């Protein structure tokens, strides 16, 4: 929800005037270190236990890479992981495009119903996810029923319904992030471009887009994270034949877990961290 690159550059200026404030500096440090430990111990455990030889993943009994090997051969789990990544990717692309367009309309134009639409956009953020998930479940079943009665075609929940739902959930978040970066954008840049002979299209792609790109990337990353992290909406909108990683984990956890779950989580963690670091590197020279 926070564009890290922006806050850091903005705070950099202020720091010169900021004197160290000694409200129990050591207490603060100790509490913070403990909090970071609270945040990281489960993650470290998760990673460590992906190398355990204990078949139930409950103890560290020895080191092995066999879970990664087995994971590779586990069609079901690999399929679920790929599905999850695919859903997150498509949902990120679509919601970033739609969200950016919406943000542009709201920041740049006055139009009738703008205030109402603005308020409406916040609803998906404040409505509990489970309500949204259940309403989508009901909606799809209702709509598919209707379609079957009208055309005789039976549609089922699957990847498409999950993607559609994730996009509906993410758009608002993208809009919030992109709008923040549009608000910090000096509109005279655009006027300067028009003045130099660029039309609206050229101005957008040569000036506006590169300058708000950090915000768009931030919004996209948020959409990707939301989709990757989501369980509730995925759980209710996926269909019987389609497995997604969190749904798969949920059903395995309820029965019997193997450290394969740890292994796949470790891999996903590595992938997403690489993505984040890369995106930061890409953004740096621009800001």
């Amino acid at each position: 929800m926070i564009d890290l690159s922006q806050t850091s550059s903005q705070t950099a200026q202020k720091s010169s005037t900021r004197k160290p404030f000694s409200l129990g500096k050591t207490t603060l440090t100790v509490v913070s270190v403990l909090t970071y430990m609270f945040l990281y111990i489960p993650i470290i455990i998760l990673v460590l236990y992906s190398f355990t030889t204990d078949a139930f993943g409950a103890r560290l009994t020895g080191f092995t890479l066999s879970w990664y090997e087995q994971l590779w051969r586990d069609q079901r789990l690999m399929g679920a992981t790929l599905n999850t990544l695919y859903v997150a990717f498509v949902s990120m692309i679509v919601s970033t495009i739609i969200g950016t367009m919406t943000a542009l309309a709201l920041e740049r134009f006055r139009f009738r119903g703008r205030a109402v639409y603005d308020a409406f956009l916040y609803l998906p953020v404040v409505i509990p996810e489970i309500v949204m998930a259940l309403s989508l479940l009901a909606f799809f079943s209702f709509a598919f029923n209707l379609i079957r009665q009208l055309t005789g075609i039976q549609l089922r929940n699957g990847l498409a319904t999950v993607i559609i739902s994730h996009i509906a959930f993410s758009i608002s978040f993208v809009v919030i992030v992109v709008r923040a970066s549009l608000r910090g954008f000096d509109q005279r840049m655009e006027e300067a471009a028009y003045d130099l002979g660029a039309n609206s299209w050229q101005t957008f792609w040569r000036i506006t887009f590169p300058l708000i790109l950090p915000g768009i990337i931030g919004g996209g990353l948020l959409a990707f994270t939301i989709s990757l992290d989501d369980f509730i909406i995925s759980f209710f909108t996926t269909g019987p034949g389609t497995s997604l990683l969190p749904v798969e984990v949920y059903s395995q956890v309820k029965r019997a877990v193997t450290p394969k779950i740890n292994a796949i989580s470790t891999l996903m963690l590595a992938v997403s961290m690489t993505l984040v670091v890369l995106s930061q590197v890409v953004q740096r020279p621009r800001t």
Partner: protein
Amino acid sequence: MNDGIAIELDDIVKSFGDVNAVDHVSMQIRDGEFFSMLGPSGCGKTTTLRMIAGFEFPTSGRLKIHGKEMGNTPPYRRPVNTVFQSYALFPHMTVAQNVAFGLEMKRVPKEQIKERVQKALELVRLPTFGDRYPRQMSGGQQQRVALARALVNEPEVLLLDEPLGALDQKLRKEMQFELKRIQEELGITFIFVTHDQEEALTMSDRIAVMNAGRVLQIGTPTEIYERPNCRFVADFIGESNFIEGTVRASNGQYATIETSDGLEMQGYTEQPVSVGSSVVLSLRPEKARLSTVNGNNSQKHEANTFPAKVERVSYIGSDTRIIVRLASGRTIDVWEQNTRSTLDRDAYWQPGEAAILSCSVENALILTS
């Protein structure tokens, strides 16, 4: 075809809601002219400029550039370029890329772009700065880049909105000189917005003085200063003593008025004034003269002479500024140039000293209110 007129505003009105930011403005700006718009904050200078550039559209009235009606023409199809007050350089492009932008939009061939960019940078004396980013340059340098970016397109008219506003005094003076040099070198029409009267007076061929959305007077710097056509202009440009009164006699060029405090004064008028009308007489402090009571100067024979008493004296280096009080109780500001160099206190006026205030008829300007 266009009789040497670069820009023509014909009865332009621009309103934002209820406010008329620009209120029935008409003016003609000639080819190759350095034209300034001068006025207090909020008087509509920027709005006028933005309408010429095409960022705003008039509510009514007509705007022509080189005889061509602009109507709905968007900014990118107008033969004018703008230098923005805050420069508006593109932060994600180097200086050279910034300058090349307009040419790229016009699809000028690559080799030509390179050449013209280099020439433009030379013109603003930054030939080696092409690879830098705007944030790596000082305010004055950024200002020059903004200028080069506009000039490289060879616009017929260049619009400058307080381009020197953000620079310090010394740099400002330097850039004023540079701007003037470039304008003369290229012969482009400059429309220059400022609220610094000195800047407008030194640089312009003609000045339009604006207030509250209206153009009050258009003229050369000398005309504006020496023959202001209303009290606002006389007050806004330079300083003035204003004396209200009623016309007692008039013969076209000259008129005699009786002031509100019972003095009789003679002054010069541009337009004939009718007897009995109320007017205001403007007297520039540097054009009033002060002489000793017993000296026998020729000034005593001038039409306007009044006994006065020196009330306050402030020495400010080049001038001495004196406030005198007339018998009627009215105070008048007088500036005397310090032409002699002396430490002798008696060489200057002393508070309480009696004096004779005088001014020639030509210097007492009668303005209709």
